[in-house]
């Protein structure tokens, strides 16, 4: 796993402590030694939450119920992304142990996901999966973004939630009801491929950025139009989960750079986890 939110395992913490120690030692006794040339760069993916045409807000903002009357609001939105692969003229970069828990902020700030040690050069395609693969989904000896003591764990039998929407559904009449869409199961795994309009150049020793939009409203819209008044909860029923999974497969797109239009990620294989 490669995530800024990964709790320390003893081994990882030890290596970090060593690195910190080495850095501080270098800073104590005068001029720091020249750093070795860094052959690789960093690519940061900024994931912008959206609902339809609007930026995601989780501050009481209400959005129209896609498939019926009334509205809904969101308190929490999370999605597991995994198996990130960059490809293009510079070659192919497969992120090792690639699992990221993307959690959208209430304030609308994008979620930053950094890929380290990327060989410099041009990349024009990103592969990513929504969910975790069947092997990871069947194990509980994870740390970091698959911490089995985290909220994305269901239990030992059912593995991890891939996609979580929590909030409130406000019917036109009557009391509001909780919105609880928890989608998991290996059948809900969706591998995607995304063209990067114009490509992105990762400089030697530097950083590059790509902006992705995650339209959470799409998870309720196409091809299965969801009336949240009728379906405020999606959990363990496989048919319900498949509706949302089919929809969220189309929810990610790559923003175009200047002069370029955006590009929606597309499903590679509908339901065939590796």
């Amino acid at each position, binding site marked *: 796993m490669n995530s800024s939110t990964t709790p320390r395992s*003893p081994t990882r913490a030890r290596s970090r402590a060593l690195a910190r120690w080495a850095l501080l030692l270098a800073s104590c006794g005068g001029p720091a030694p020249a750093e070795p040339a860094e052959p690789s760069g960093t690519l940061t993916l900024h994931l912008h939450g959206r609902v339809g045409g609007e930026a995601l807000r989780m501050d009481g903002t209400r959005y129209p119920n896609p498939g019926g009357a009334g509205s809904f609001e969101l308190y929490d939105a999370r999605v597991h992304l995994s198996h990130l692969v960059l490809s293009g003229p510079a070659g192919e970069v497969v992120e090792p142990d690639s699992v990221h828990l993307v959690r959208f902020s209430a304030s609308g700030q994008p979620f930053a996901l950094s890929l380290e040690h990327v060989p410099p050069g041009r990349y024009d395609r990103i592969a990513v999966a929504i969910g975790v693969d069947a092997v990871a989904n069947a194990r509980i000896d994870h740390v970091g973004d698959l911490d089995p003591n985290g909220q994305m*764990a269901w239990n030992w039998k059912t593995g991890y939630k891939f996609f979580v929407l929590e909030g409130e559904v406000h019917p036109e009449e009557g009391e509001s009801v909780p919105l*609880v869409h928890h989608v998991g199961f290996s059948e809900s795994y969706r591998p995607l491929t995304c063209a990067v309009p114009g490509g992105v150049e990762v400089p030697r020793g530097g950083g590059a950025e790509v902006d992705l939009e995650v339209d959470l409203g799409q998870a309720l819209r196409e091809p299965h139009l969801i009336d949240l008044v009728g379906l*405020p909860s999606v959990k363990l029923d496989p048919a319900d989960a498949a509706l949302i999974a089919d929809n969220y497969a189309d929810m990610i797109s790559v923003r175009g750079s200047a002069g370029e239009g955006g590009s929606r990620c597309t499903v590679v294989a509908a339901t065939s986890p590796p």
Partner: protein
Amino acid sequence: MPRRSRSRSGAARSRLAGGALGLLGLLPGLLCCAPEPLPPPTPLPGFETPFYFGGFTVPADNPLTVEGVALGRMLFYEERLSADDTISCATCHQPARAFTDGRTLARGIHGARTPRNTMSLANLLWGPQRFFWDGRAVDLEQQAGQPIVNPDEMGSTWDEVIAKLERAPAYPASFEAAFGTREITPERVTKALASFERTMVSTGSRYDRYLRGELRLDPREQRGRELFMTHPDAKAGIRGANCIDCHSQFLTSGFAPEFDGFQNNGLDDDDQLEAGLMAVTGRSRDRGRFKAPTLRNIELTAPYMHDGRFATLEEVIDHYSDHVVSSSTLDPLIREAANTPGAPLGVTLTHDEKAALLAFLRTLTDHEFVHDPSLSDPGA
């Protein structure tokens, strides 16, 4: 399934590979810019934790050392931390009760009744790293200091505490061993207390042995475990007790990130709802949210809830089954959870399901932990 487990010997229980990390964190200061002399480099030996607890972090400026933990243990049982030398941390956090006191509400100096039930102490390295029922302390060090100067708890002042500890024969040397000089400061007192508390790791319950593959739960316990771990879905025909939405599956604590480990669990209506987390965040939507405690050793920590209103675990289970109260900030996952469509709030468990859940909760009791000599009063 387990890759390793911890030794339960007293020596091995006083743990920690993480001490080595702390030592590494200290060396830079030693070499160039230390504001004060440093503790002797004696990391705790043999500290291992189960992989199913996940990673943990020890503050870089408070590494776990043999001397620091030993000092923290002395201080934990030290009545001179209170104004009239009658109350120590262990007065409310008694080992035999899994570091609780058996009272509805904790009693402080001169019998003062506090507004809160005493929280149990176990596995504090994991779960929410905010402490107290309302999360007002951002780390264990901050938590450890507040009861000492709270007028209704230990009622002392730092000047008084430090003066008394300076006069006590054992302490100046113990502070020197732990921190490099004989100086006694509030920061050092709370650091030592926090270090000792971090060594309170409970991994000897039947549930732990089950997770390590050392035994099988009996059918009723196993059914209780399944109920504990399941959010109900009536549409899918899956029944659950919904515990896991607030209590993580292995630690059974609240969730770690930010305020995820705080919920309004349906005890009161809007008229009666206390501030809870709102007192810390100032957000009205946090009213009535309290920390989800670890359920490790829950059998030993009655009475229950932040105000101790439930005398027995049976009452607790009845609450979540049949008596959840609606309010504007009731946790959505509690509000939504129903085994019976259209039923009132609560998961409406059957008699047998309640018994199974209770049986599972009793597998969380760790008798070795509550009788661990390394956690006991060093002066006893």
